[in-house]
């Protein structure tokens, strides 16, 4: 009896989740105020999603057989929110042992069990750009994911076809992590200063260029001499070479205007033109220069003064950048803030007087552009992915609450069906009253402990 009960219940759980694995869905959302972002606001309109793609936008649409209809009268439909800077759903963030770690990729450490995915859905967020940390000047490659909560295979979260991106970091973080390593023990390494950060970047790019040259020479020589010596293979240089080749978009943690200008000079010297400055609290000071370079900015709405290099900023940052023609997004960099990015967007409107569409663009089409996925998401257009979210009021109102969130036409969040305990994995050994173990989902601690136990025996 005991066994039967437990098995039946466990089976129930397994089924309710696996059924959702990486599928596409169809749904008709009727009579909503549709905030298309790229094509104005459509009152009392319907949006039909078929097999994961937006197939029709109009009025009086009817649902094909078997397609669920959702009455959104009095509600607002907007594209799923995109967070251009996040560290959710990752089992490790910083490989802080070296100032350049271009070869590591967040793709290898995606953690689909992280509850933050579900919570982001509850805030209307459907895509996150999950990034390497800012310990290293050139950190790892990032991963763009869709919030398909319930999928347990990490690859199931991948935003298929999203361009590769990589994390850079300037200023105090890399100089602290590497330049002050070991206190005064003499174990510090470059970069100790901002000059060192630039030197690390230039060295890394120069190394990669030499690497590319060596392989080019080899390929030429090989046509004459089949016994030509192949150059040493280097995973790190391969990735940096791909940045130079324009195959990887750079997203750089930065604060100060001087370091922002520095990176643009370095990139120009190495022929790299794709750059999004992340955080960029002083970007407003160099907005014309950013616009001229074609650089993007992804900023906080009103957060600064949390350390010296970020002492100076303004809540007008996003608005000034926008008015200067810089494609700007507002990001969270936080598993809490990502649940109310629509409030963050609204702040830029409060301070900078941006229009509704401009403000909402900063959490939809603009981050999509910065991630190179604007042909797929970021607006409500026929042919785009069915990544949508329904609010009970205008999303820029402080009273609005997200009600439902869809990814590829599949509903992953519904406020009316929001259960207390949506965890996909429950630590079998933690104490119920241990907040750290139960709520933070730090299951890996358990894993590590097991290994440690094993090693101690």
């Amino acid at each position, binding site marked *: 009896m005991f066994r039967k009960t437990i098995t039946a219940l466990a089976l129930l759980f397994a089924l309710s989740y696996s059924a959702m694995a990486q599928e596409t869905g169809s749904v008709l959302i009727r009579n909503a105020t549709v905030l298309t972002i790229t094509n104005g606001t459509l009152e009392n309109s319907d949006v039909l999603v078929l097999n994961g793609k937006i197939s029709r936008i109009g009025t009086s649409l009817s649902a094909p057989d078997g397609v669920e209809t959702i009455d959104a009268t009095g509600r607002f439909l907007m594209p799923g929110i995109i967070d251009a800077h996040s560290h959710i759903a990752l089992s490790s963030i910083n490989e802080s*042992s070296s100032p350049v770690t271009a070869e590591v990729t967040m793709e290898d450490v995606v953690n689909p069990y992280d509850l933050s995915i579900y919570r982001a859905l509850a805030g209307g967020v459907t895509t996150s750009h999950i990034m390497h940390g800012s310990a290293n000047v050139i950190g790892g490659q990032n991963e763009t994911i869709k919030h398909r909560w319930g999928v347990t295979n990490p690859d199931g979260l991948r935003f298929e076809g999203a361009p590769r991106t990589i994390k850079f970091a300037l200023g105090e973080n890399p100089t602290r992590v590497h330049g002050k390593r070991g206190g005064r023990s003499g*174990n510090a390494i470059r970069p100790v200063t901002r000059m060192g950060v630039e030197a690390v970047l230039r060295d890394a790019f120069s190394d990669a260029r030499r690497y590319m040259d060596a392989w080019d020479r080899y390929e030429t020589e090989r046509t004459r001499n089949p016994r030509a010596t192949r150059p040493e293979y280097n995973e790190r240089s391969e990735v940096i070479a791909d940045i130079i080749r324009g195959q990887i978009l750079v997203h750089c943690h930065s604060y100060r205007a001087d370091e922002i200008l520095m990176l643009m000079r370095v990139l120009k010297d190495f022929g790299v033109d794709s750059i999004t400055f992340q955080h960029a609290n002083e970007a407003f000071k160099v907005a014309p220069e950013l616009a001229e370079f074609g650089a993007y900015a992804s900023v906080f709405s009103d957060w600064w003064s949390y350390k010296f290099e970020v002492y100076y900023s303004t809540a007008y940052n996003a608005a000034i950048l926008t008015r200067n023609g810089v494609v700007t997004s507002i990001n969270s960099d936080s598993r809490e803030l990502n649940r109310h990015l629509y409030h963050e967007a609204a702040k830029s409107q409060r301070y900078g007087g941006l229009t509704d569409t401009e403000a909402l663009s900063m959490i939809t089409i603009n981050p999509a552009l910065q991630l190179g996925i604007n042909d797929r998401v970021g607006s409500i257009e026929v042919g785009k992915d069915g990544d949508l979210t329904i609010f009970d009021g205008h999303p820029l109102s402080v009273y609005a609450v997200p009600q439902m969130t869809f990814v590829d036409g599949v509903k992953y969040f519904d406020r009316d069906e929001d259960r207390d305990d949506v965890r996909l994995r429950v630590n079998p050994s933690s104490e119920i009253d241990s907040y750290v173990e139960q709520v933070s989902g730090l299951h890996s601690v358990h894993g590590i402990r097991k290994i440690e136990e094993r*090693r101690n025996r």
Partner: protein
Amino acid sequence: MSRNLSGEPCGEVLPIRTILVALVFLAGATEAFAQRDASDIPTVTRAYALEGARIVQAPGRVIEHGTVVIRDGLIVAVGEDVDIPYDAERIAADSMTVYAAFIDGLSMTGVPAPKRTNEPAQVDDPGNPEDDRAGIQPQRDVRTMLKADDKSITALREVGFGVAHVVPHGRFLPGNSAIILLGGKSADEMVLRGDAAMFAQFQGARGVYPRTPMAMTAKMRQLIREARRRQVMENRYRANPSGLARPEYDDVHYAFFPIIDNTKSVFFFVDDALEIHRALKLSSDLGFDLMLAGLNEAFDTVDELVAADVPLFVTLNLPEKPKWMAKMKRDSIETVLASFNDETRTATYRDLEAEKRNLEARQLMSRDRYVGVARDLNDAGLTFGFSTLGVKPADIRGNIREIIERGLSENAALAALTTDAAELLGLSGALGSVDTGKIANLIVSDGPIFGEKTHIRYVFVDGHKFLYEKKEEKEDASEEEVTVAGEWLFTAFTPEGERSGTVTLKLEAGSYSGTMAYEDGTATIELYSISFDGESLSFSWDDPDEGPMTVEGVVSADEFEGVALVGMDEMTVIGKRRSDPG
């Protein structure tokens, strides 16, 4: 620590009772038996006959009343009616059952743990450490690390294992494995097959590259792709060195040549579902042959494992029960499960009890999924063995019983421990069943092997007899209360370097309190949520800069090793007790 069973190798033909009496005299009344080395006494015969036993030759293949004859380490006859050689030691086994001895798919049995150093060596550039410091040691060979008299061998043999696939201690790539017999006078004598597989585990280097799983996967790609290049150069040079620069030898890359050639597998220990995905992806991206052990969360990866079709060895380590679960009676468990409601949307303050019950029910179901991994794999038609890595030998038989209770058939369990394990390790010609011509690795028990009350009476390894007698049940008074009280020096390996602090833990009326004092004198802070269960220690405090921090890990004697959790980052923490436990 006391055990109910005590084993000793007996190579002599003296009547057992005589030896028993002699030993009891020697050892005194508290110990029924003393350990004795087989090499002390010359073996008179290496022929044995187990007469009149129930013989389970292989799962589902049973001789109800037969005899097994062993000579010089091999099974020479099995059947209902076999001739017993005149010089054989005859063992009346009419109330006993004979099985093939178990095979352990992965462990560190017979490989003593290296002495742990609290301070890993400092390096000039943590991004570019020496291979040994980085845990990149795929050229090492576990055969050079075996110790024939290591206690772990006796302990695993005592619960019925005759053979183990063993790997070196280390970090990410600790070296090559070997398959060993769990008995022998010397390390060499134990080796059945060396250089069996290259062992790997997602265990990052301390403070240096590769620290994190993402760096380990990147390192693996780098190593294999560069090894491919070096192999091309090496082969070309061997064929005709004229005019070519001499290839640069290095033992790490060269150790990968058989991996690239697919003549040797990478044997990955994977501790959770994410590690399973990582290992499978590396194997398919880089094209190396893979074997997997551990797999404690394979319930979420069954489809992927079916598709991968690689040898699997499921851990016999079951999740530790939380305190509430360990205390709970079975009928209370029923009540908790019956009250489970997946749909609750109740504010905690309105019904705390309901929330607690739901959390408990989910944890019970969760534990069931971990215990049910072997059942799930079996139901999916996969073949697997078991691994004893990290399991106390004394827990093994109980854990197997629990796995069987959760739905794995006894035959499937036996197959995983014998025939299938042999097959997966490529040893089915010599091991895994009670058949003529195979190595004489046998278990003789006084009942069905998975029975709760069954005792193992003999284990034969390589035809050597090890006798186990039931010892008088005695009071477990020797077990000393383990405490973590005292003054500890804790060191965290942070990205910025080492940071130390003194942790003082006090035990009063069964509960701990304590303080943390940073070595740089910046603060002395009260600890909270201190928990210690005799092995695992965790505690938290509020760092003035970083906010809430938690340290969690394992204590053995006066040493601690674990991790610190700061926000979403984890770092290695070690500790050493400086004072007497007070």
